[in-house]
């Protein structure tokens, strides 16, 4: 595999400051490599080093196998197109003239744009959905339109390598997907793409490989699934997150649950939460933020509540997907309930599989809070669950209407 763009232990930065040390990365024809990382980590600096705005202080960067410093500005611009974070348009060129500026590296000193250049510009404008703006002065256009025109301008360079620096940040949902779908299509046609992403879900969805930039270095590069893990997100972004799979696209999704800094230092009581099917997730988060020591009862793997409990590092009994609360699990929940200052049963239906969670609470009924009505629509156990709930109520369990009142009740009990 011959890389179109290669960082070979390149240290990049600005005069007197090294921002990223010894980055190694190769981007080949046909692939999109995404860069993610916290603000100010140096993602953009890595890209800027290619166009000469940032400097390479050690190692080297090669374009199509040629060291960068052997290429002149025009030569380089025939190979690399850039779509910047934001585009300014202080002077009123019209959109077509603006896109035609991308032809500069291909035109000789005395040459002016010809019909072939205009045809190419119109084609890239068509693909970026900007052709209808051709006669509009660019200084009257919106940020989103300008961003797509900047992409058209970069494509007019007929580049072999495309660099995107958070290029979709000013776009609405539709145009964001449109632009990234186009980039994907261009990559499938052979373009090598290195893109800085702000949005982790988009990064995961559109990148073949992802690299993490943090603490002055470019970390190991791998598939989105290998790179985007909860521990990495906690370490790099200082965010506890649930890493899941998008139901529709199959891409990795990242749902931030809370910031590391948001957890209060004050230690409050221990709370056991019985949930499942997402009924407990908001409460788990709220209790964790409020400083309670939270544990969760038995939860199935693949369940949202289980993912949240795991992301927040809460003790819980993890069952296999679709597995039942067996005797061993039930005993574990009994011990957790004994240990807890308060127990909350969320608005989850009960059936044969999770009845054990309810049975295990018998000894802790006096400090149990039941969220929501418990009617037949929540009972899939042929009445067994209803009977257990009634027993709990009989020996002191309190019923509350919703999460808010549950939180107040928990504060009272603990």
């Amino acid at each position: 595999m011959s890389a179109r763009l290669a960082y070979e232990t390149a240290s990049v930065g600005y005069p007197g400051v090294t921002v990223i040390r010894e980055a190694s990365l190769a981007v080949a024809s046909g692939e999109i490599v995404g860069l993610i990382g916290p603000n100010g980590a140096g993602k953009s600096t890595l890209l800027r080093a290619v166009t000469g705005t940032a400097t390479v202080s050690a190692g080297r960067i090669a374009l199509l196998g040629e060291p960068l410093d052997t290429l002149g500005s025009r030569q380089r611009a025939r190979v690399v197109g850039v779509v910047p974070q934001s585009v300014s348009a202080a002077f009123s060129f019209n959109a077509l003239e603006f896109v035609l500026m991308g032809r500069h590296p291909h035109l000789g000193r005395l040459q002016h744009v010809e019909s072939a250049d205009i045809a190419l510009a119109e084609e890239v404008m068509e693909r970026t959905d900007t052709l209808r703006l051709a006669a509009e002065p660019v200084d009257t256009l919106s940020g989103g339109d300008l961003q797509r025109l900047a992409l058209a301008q970069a494509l007019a360079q007929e580049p072999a390598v495309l660099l995107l620096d958070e290029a979709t940040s000013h776009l609405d949902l539709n145009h964001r997907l449109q632009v990234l779908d186009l980039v994907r299509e261009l990559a499938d046609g052979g373009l090598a793409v290195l893109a800085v992403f702000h949005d982790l879900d988009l990064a995961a969805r559109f990148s073949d490989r992802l690299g993490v930039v943090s603490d002055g270095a470019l970390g190991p590069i791998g598939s989105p699934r290998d790179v985007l893990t909860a521990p990495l997100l906690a370490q790099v972004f200082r965010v506890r997150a649930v890493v899941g799979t998008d139901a529709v696209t199959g891409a990795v999704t990242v749902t931030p649950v809370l910031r590391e800094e948001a957890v209060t230092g004050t230690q409050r009581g221990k709370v056991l939460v019985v949930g499942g099917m997402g009924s407990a997730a908001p409460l788990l988060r709220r209790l964790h933020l409020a400083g309670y020591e939270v544990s969760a009862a038995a939860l199935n793997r693949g369940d949202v509540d289980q993912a949240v409990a795991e992301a927040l590092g809460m003790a819980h009994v993890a069952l296999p997907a679709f597995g039942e609360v067996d005797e061993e699990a039930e005993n574990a929940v009994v011990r957790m309930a004994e240990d807890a200052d308060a127990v909350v049963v969320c608005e989850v239906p009960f059936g044969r599989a999770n009845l054990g969670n309810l049975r295990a609470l018998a000894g802790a009924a006096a400090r149990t809070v039941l969220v929501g009505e418990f009617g037949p629509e929540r009972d899939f156990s042929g009445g067994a669950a209803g009977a257990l709930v009634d027993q709990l109520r009989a020996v002191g369990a309190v019923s509350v209407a919703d999460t808010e009142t549950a939180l107040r009740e928990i504060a009272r009990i603990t």
Partner: protein
Amino acid sequence: MAAPTRPRRATVIAVLFVALALVMLAGVGFGAVSVGPADIVRAIGRAITGEARAAGDAVIVDIRLPRVFLAALVGACLASAGVLYQALFRNPLADPYILGMSAGAGLGAVIALTLTASATALRFGVVPAGAFLGAVLTIVLVVRLASLRGTLDVTSLLLAGVAISYALSALTSFVMVFFRESMTSVVFWMMGGLTAASWPYVFMVTPMLALGLAVPLFATRELNLMLLGEERAGELGVDVERFKRLLLAVGALLVAAAVSVSGLIGFVGLMTPHMVRLVIGPDHRVLLPASAIGGAIVMVLADLAARTVLAPVEIPVGIVTALVGGPFFVWLLVRRNGHR
């Protein structure tokens, strides 16, 4: 490729050239003694063919013609320099006078003048060289000063320009007081005047303008790209650092040409490109040549006004341009603030 609503390049240039010719005819024709266009053409014809001169020919050929030509050349120099600095700083308020370059060139020229006071023959080489050096040093100093706080923003650029301009004018006055005997002529020159115009001056300025205009005319695409910002221009293939140095040098050459023959004339470099841009848009392929011709027109008209409005008293032409350009600059400032 021009937008459909904008006039075509060749048309713009042709119309401006015709206008310039007419204005120059008026410039030669009006004065203490008015001369008709036919007489002017005949006098020029006689001068070219070497025929014996008629009675009024000396006024036309030796006084008015070089003066009008010089006014046109100076106007073209100043307007072209304005275009270049406006592209360089991405700012329509940039102008050699406001940036302090005229003052720098003035000081350079005055020093050169006083040093060579005895050797007139040297002046044509030494004065422009002094002015060029003064202009280059000034713009480098102003840019350094303006970017002290990091980025080069408009406000600091204008402030630095004004501050340096004052300091340099003071230094110039100091030099003039020191060499008292040459003061009167220098003061008049400093205010911006074309009274001393003669053919040797015209021949000196012409190649400077030609060079100063030819170089950027080969780089109009780069000038357009600079308007997108230095970083974007670099991404699209401009060697930005080299191009900036080239623009600074070429602009300084144009300013030096104008200042060494006519002293400090402000606002032509600001007004002309702005008016031209309003009509034809920002494309330097048209903007640069059109502004050069436009500057020539403005300057010939300003000089005509300077000579005729209070005749027989002659106002320094720099005062005329400042009277018109000052309010124009204020209008620009107000309009820009309204946009934000």
